[in-house]
């Protein structure tokens, strides 16, 4: 799990003062009696990179297709730069699109693929050649003009599809799971390439993905969706550190979720242990709650400085995951489910952790979130 820690410089817009560039306003979409989208609203600012993140079937692709104009919303408006485009066909909306399958025209060369949208703009031949050349250089494939898509690797096809979408300088770039068909290593590299390209061109971009890592590393802001509604909108750090709902807590990153009962505003009882936690809004003492904390926030340095939320546990298993161990811990307190904890390699060595050993861990109070159960 990688968390973006460096702040982004780039062209991240000043969200507080700028007027929204693309507005998704109260979109509903019904298929028969099924509500695929329910009152979905958010704004996107010029030059921003927004990820629609959610599990399959959450409505994110339907929303993207509505923004593209390929589906028509049941209720709601799409506003681009102050103009309502809800009634426009896809060809009148000025969006560049990249699909998961790339949809490159197989019988046309890379050049003709990239130039495809330029012919529609009645550009002169010389201008087209110039523009395509520039774009191919931009994606790092200046010599591929005469090749056919089938002669390119998956990653190269992906870049050509991107160049084709960018060629007519669209207002917004829409990416529908563009990296899902690629292998893991290439995916990581292309994330950076796409993000880099987007920042250099300053093109407003929406990316749909089910891969939370992709969303966290690429987006300025993430829109987390589930079952047709927006669960949370925020920067990657906001979404990761402060999940607004149990769904977000569970879906983004790894999370321990334990059942508990709220004792007072700052205390929660899990099994026979009481833990200090962040104050939970709108919950009353005695409420049944879910207590959430991330495996990497579990502090295994038993004798450390921590004095709150100490928890004696027995190590049940240690799974070696390369750069760290994932420990399965059985709390000594009765009535508590197992807890997962990520342990850095050097800490594992330092404390001589091994299955069967009993240690004391601590849970920082500011990293525990409490949600209503239900």
């Amino acid at each position, binding site marked *: 799990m990688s968390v973006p820690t460096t702040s982004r410089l780039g062209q991240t817009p000043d969200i507080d003062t700028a007027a929204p560039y693309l507005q998704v306003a109260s979109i*509903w979409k*019904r298929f028969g009696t099924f*509500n695929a989208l*329910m*009152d*979905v*609203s*958010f704004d996107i600012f010029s030059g921003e990179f927004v990820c629609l993140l959610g599990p399959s079937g959450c409505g994110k692709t339907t929303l993207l297709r509505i923004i*593209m*104009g*390929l589906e*028509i*919303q*049941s*209720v*709601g*408006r799409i506003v681009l730069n102050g103009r309502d485009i*809800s*009634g*426009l*066909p*896809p*060809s*009148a*909306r000025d*969006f*560049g*699109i990249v*699909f998961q*399958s*790339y*949809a490159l*025209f*197989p*019988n*046309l060369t890379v050049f003709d693929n990239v130039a*495809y*949208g330029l*012919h*529609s*703009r009645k550009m002169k031949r010389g201008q087209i050649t110039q523009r395509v050349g520039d774009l191919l250089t931009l994606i790092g494939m200046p010599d591929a003009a005469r090749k*056919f*898509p*089938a*002669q390119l690797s998956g990653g190269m096809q992906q870049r050509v599809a991107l160049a*084709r*979408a960018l*060629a*007519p300088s*669209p207002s917004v770039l829409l990416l529908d799971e563009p990296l899902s068909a690629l292998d893991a290593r290439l995916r990581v590299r292309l994330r950076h390439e796409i993000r880099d390209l987007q920042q250099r061109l300053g093109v407003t971009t929406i990316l749909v993905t089910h891969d939370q890592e992709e969303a966290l590393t690429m987006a300025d802001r993430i829109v987390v969706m589930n*079952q047709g*509604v*927006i*669960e*949370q*909108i*925020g920067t990657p750090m906001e979404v990761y550190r402060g999940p*607004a*709902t149990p769904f977000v807590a569970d879906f983004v990153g790894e999370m321990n979720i334990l059942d508990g009962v709220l004792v007072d505003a700052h205390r929660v009882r899990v099994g026979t242990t009481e833990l200090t936690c962040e104050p939970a809004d709108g919950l009353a003492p005695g409420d049944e709650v879910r207590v959430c904390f991330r495996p990497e926030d579990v502090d295994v340095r038993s004798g450390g400085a921590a004095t709150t939320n100490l928890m004696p546990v027995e190590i049940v298993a240690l799974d070696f995951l390369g750069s760290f161990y994932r420990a399965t811990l059985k709390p000594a307190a009765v009535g508590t489910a197992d807890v997962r904890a990520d342990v850095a390699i050097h800490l594992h060595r330092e404390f001589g952790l091994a299955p069967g050993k009993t240690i004391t861990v601590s849970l920082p109070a500011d990293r525990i979130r409490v949600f209503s159960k239900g």
Partner: protein
Amino acid sequence: MATAVSTALAPAVRAPRQKLARDEWIARGGLVALALWLTVALALPLWALLSKSFQSRTGTFVGLANFVTYFSTPTLFVSFWNSVSVALVTTAIVLPGTFAYAYALTRSGMRGKSVFAGLALIPILAPSLLQAIGLIYLFGNQGLVRGLLLGNSIYGSLGITIGEAIYCFPHALMILVTALSIADARLYDSAEALGASPRRVFFTVTLPGVKYGIMSTALVVFTLVITDFGIPKVIGGRFNVLATDVYKQVIGQQNFGMGAVVGMMLLVPAVLAFVAERLVQRRQTALLTARAVPFVPRRKPVTDWLLFAFCALVAVPVVSLLGVAAWASLIKFWPYDLSVSLKNYAFSHFDAQGWSSYVNSLRMAAWTAVIGTAIVFAGAYLLEKTRGFPVVRAIVQLFAMLPLAVPGLVLGLGYIFFFNDPKNPLGFLYGTLAILVINTVAHYYTVSHLTATTALKQLDSEFEAVSASLKAPFYRTLWKVTVPVCLPTILSISVYMFVNAMTTVSAAIFLYVPHTKLASIAIVNMDDAGQTAAAAAMGVMIVITSAGVRLVHMLATRVLETRTQAWRNR
């Protein structure tokens, strides 16, 4: 932050109406045109037939009276049983024989597979009439080897059954070869690893895997036999079947009401078989998985040679039947003067229209290939790749599947009723070559449509969305991408249309007038007039033409693959 999970229904506000781009209007116009075309070429003629079956000779509504007459007249009703029994017997013969042949082609290490596959498909190039003529030369009253029948007559159910079996063989073979080609080697490896005997593997793996293919084949053969006109016409003698009854009622007795009733009797089993076949087909595709590993047969000398002998035993008579017909067409005076001459090809000596019916066939087939392919491909494209008009779409979808269930004779009959009606403004088409083209395109619509749809489905479904986002109208992408990519399929469809237009008899028999007579009709006429050798000669002309077109198609496809399909290679 919107975090509330609302389960309330959306407010009842009207959905925003999307304006249509210009090219979308064109697409919808095309869809409506397609629906109109299918209505005129298919639905209305069938409706005319249906309503005619409830009318008396004078055109007044008589309810079920015609049907009552039909069922209470033994001479009429007997042909229904004749048709069904011949169809059942033929199916029972063709199925196991063809299965063994297909098995040899796909699952054995037999030598000469491609030769046997090629030989088996030759009958497809000929009208079914020619099979029957070949049978007459072998087993007829002056047949070469009539002694083999031990005194039985070839004219009647025996001749029809043999003729139909050979006529259906290539059609059945294509389905079974396809079914048997789909084999997952992993299943066979597992069965072998578990110690199953070859016999057990056959009954537990092979047979269940092609179960649906076998059912499908049986239904197709049954329908082909029930609806075939050529063979019973030539060799049926006094053994009446439904197909010949329709012809007799309409052409012979001008009893259109009764003709329509017999047509309905022909339509019902064909439709039932069609529906059953569709249900079976749906299951068949569900068996396929993307992960299947192709099966590569191993050589087993004894089995392979046995299968080789069997294939030879089947292929030799299948081919020789046409060979005999071709040979007989070159004989001066069968069986007395066996010297070779081309006098039987001087068609004007035997038939008033002479060679012009062959020219008509060529023209009709060419127009059918060009117009039919254009309509079929455009139609499949509009259905598959454009949006909007769900109701029109559903109607077109239904109509496109209909022709497969409608026997040619029935469609032809419907055409007479519909286009010959004095109130029909399209009546001017009657007696032209155009009506034959329209009829042939409609008759062979379904298979071509399915072929085109399959090819289109293989294209990325987002091409249209991408080109819309690039502001390219759909017809530009159709022309620049879809058509070039589908060119091999388009060529196959046009060849399919051409060959079928050359060989078809059934519908055309009701629709020709002397100056639009087709070669296949000329065969029927000359055979009727006792000019069997000339009829055979005309049949040979059709075979040569069909074979020539297929050959040109093969070469063209090869050239095409190297020249314009370079992008397919990595």
